[in-house]
C-alpha cells in the first residue's frame, strides 16, 4: 500500500516530456505578524494539468495563490512562472507575466461600477487596444456565452447572484486567453447544483484550452471532478500529493481524517 512518502517521491519531479513545469513553487515560506502560514511548501504544475490544493480553512491555500499571482511576496523560497522567478519583480514587469495568467477570486471581485460586459471587457480595453470596439464586444459576448451569461450583459454585479458573479469572474479571467488559470474556491458558498455547474464549466474550459491550472478548494468532490492531481495542505506544507486514489490509499492520519470528514 503506497505511503505518503512514496506518493510524494513519485510526484517529486513531474517534468513533462523534458519540459520544465509552468508553475514551480520551491520551498516557500510565508508568515503574517509572526504567524507561519506557509512552511516550506513546494509544488509544480505542468501545461494542460489541473492541480487541486485542498486543506482546512486557514492553512494558506489562498495565500499560495496570491503569491503565485504576485499580490504578495514570499518570505523565502522561489516561485517560477515559465522558468522566471517572480519574487521581487517590479510591478510593470510582473504585469507582463500576469497577462498570461487568469485569476478567479473567491468572491469574484467584480468591479461594481461596471456592467457584466464592462467587467469582462476591462482587461481587453487595457491590453488589446489593437482590437476594434466591435471585435471586443464580440469577444466579450463569446466569453460570456461560454459561461452561460450572455443574456445578462448590461446587468450590474449587484443585480446577479453569487454563482452568476463567479461565472462572470471566470469569463473575465479568461479574457486575455491565459496559459495559466488560478481559481480560489470557485464553488465556495454555492448550492450543490450551481457548484456542479461551475465544476462542469471548468472541466470543459480545461479540455478546450489546456491551461496549467491550480484550483484551491476545500470541496473534495469538486477537486475530484476537475483536477488530475490533488495536494493536501496541513500546517503550511503539502502532506500528500497525487491522484484521489493515492489519497485514499494513504496511511497518514490527517489524510484519513480529511477524507472521512469530506
Amino acid at each position, binding site marked *: 500500500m503506497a505511503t505518503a512518502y512514496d506518493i510524494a517521491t513519485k510526484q517529486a519531479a513531474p517534468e513533462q516530456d523534458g519540459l520544465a513545469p509552468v508553475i514551480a513553487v520551491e520551498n516557500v515560506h510565508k508568515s503574517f505578524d509572526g504567524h507561519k502560514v506557509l512552511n516550506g511548501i513546494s509544488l509544480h504544475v505542468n501545461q494542460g494539468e489541473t492541480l487541486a490544493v485542498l486543506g482546512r480553512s486557514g492553512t494558506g491555500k489562498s495565500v499560495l495563490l496570491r503569491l503565485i499571482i504576485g*499580490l504578495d511576496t514570499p518570505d523565502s523560497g522561489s516561485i517560477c512562472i515559465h522558468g522566471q522567478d517572480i519574487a521581487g519583480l517590479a510591478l*510593470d514587469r510582473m*504585469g507582463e507575466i500576469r497577462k498570461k495568467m487568469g485569476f478567479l*477570486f473567491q468572491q469574484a471581485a467584480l468591479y461594481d461600477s461596471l456592467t457584466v460586459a464592462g467587467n469582462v471587457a476591462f482587461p481587453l480595453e*487595457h491590453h488589446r487596444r489593437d482590437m476594434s470596439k466591435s471585435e471586443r464586444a464580440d469577444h466579450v459576448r463569446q466569453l460570456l456565452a461560454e459561461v452561460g451569461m450572455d443574456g445578462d450583459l448590461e446587468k450590474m454585479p449587484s443585480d446577479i447572484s453569487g454563482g452568476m458573479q463567479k461565472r462572470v469572474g471566470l469569463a473575465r479571467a479568461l479574457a486575455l486567453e491565459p496559459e495559466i488559470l488560478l481559481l480560489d474556491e470557485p464553488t465556495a458558498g454555492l448550492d450543490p447544483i450551481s457548484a456542479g455547474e461551475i465544476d462542469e464549466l471548468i472541466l470543459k474550459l480545461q479540455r478546450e484550452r489546456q491551461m496549467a491550472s491550480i484550483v484551491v478548494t476545500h470541496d473534495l468532490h469538486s477537486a475530484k471532478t476537475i483536477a488530475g492531481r490533488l495536494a493536501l495542505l496541513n500546517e503550511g506544507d503539502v502532506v500528500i500529493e497525487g491522484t484521489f486514489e493515492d489519497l485514499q490509499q494513504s496511511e497518514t492520519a490527517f489524510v484519513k481524517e480529511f477524507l472521512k470528514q469530506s
Partner: protein
Amino acid sequence: MSSRGLIAGANISPPIPVRRSVPASSVVNSTVGLFNGFFEWFGELGIFSWRVFRAAITPPYEGRELIRQLDEVGSKSLPLVAMAGAAIGVILSLEARYSLTRFGAKSMFPATLVYTVLQVMGPVITGLVVSGRVGAGMGAELASMKVTEQIDAIEASAINPYRLLAATRILACILMLPLLTIATDGCALLTGWFAQSLVEPLSFHQFISSGFNGAHFNAFLPQTFKTAVYGLIIGLIACFQGMRTRGGAAGVGRAATNSVVLASLFLILADVLLVKFILVFFP
C-alpha cells in the same frame, strides 16, 4: 446583627480609595508607539507617492479614466463650491461693510472684498469644500474597492492600480482646484456686490473697477494657482488612505473620515508655507 447583616455597633470605616499610578514605562511606551506610528505613516505615504509618480510618468497613460475623474472632481463639485462662494460673498459683504463704516473707510469696500476673496477666502474655502466632498468620496470609493479585492483584481489583470486609480485622481484634483477656485471667487464677488447693492446701489462695473484698481496679476494669480497644491494634497491623502484600507465596512468609514480630516489639516498647514512662499517670490 443589624438588618443589613452587619454586626451592630461595629465601627466600619469607608474603604480608602486606592490611587493607581500609571507606570512610567507604560506612558513612555505609548508615546514611543505614537511617534513610531507617526513616522511610519509618513514613510508609507512617501513610498506610495513615489509609486504613483513613477506610474504617472510611464506609459500607457489612462486618458479615459483621467477625463472621467476630471468630470467627477470638477463638474460635480461646481455647484457646491459655487454655493459656498456665494455664501462667503454675502458674509464678507455684511461684515466688511460694518467694519469699514466704523473706521470711515466705506469707499475701500470693493477693494477689501476683492482682495479678501481672491487672496484668502476663495482658495481656502474651495480647498476645504472640495476636501470634504472629493476627499471623502475618493477615500470611501477606493477603500471599498480595497476591501472587496477589486484593487487586487485590477493588479491581477496586469493593470497598474497606481496609474489607473491614484495618478488619474490626483492629477484631476491638481487640474480642477484652480478652476473651481475661480468659480468660487466669481460667485463670492457677485453675491458680495449684490448684498452691498441692496444697501447702497453700486453698479457692477463700478464695483469691479474700484475693486481691481491698481491691482496686478501677481496679486491674484499665485493665490489661485496655489490651489493646485491643495489638489495634490487632497488627491494624495484620499488615494493613500483608501488604497491601504483594512477591516471591512469599519475600515471604509475610517478611510473616508481620515481622508477628509487629514487632507483639510494638511491643506491649512500647507497654506502657511504657501502664503510665505508667495510673499517672497511674488511680492
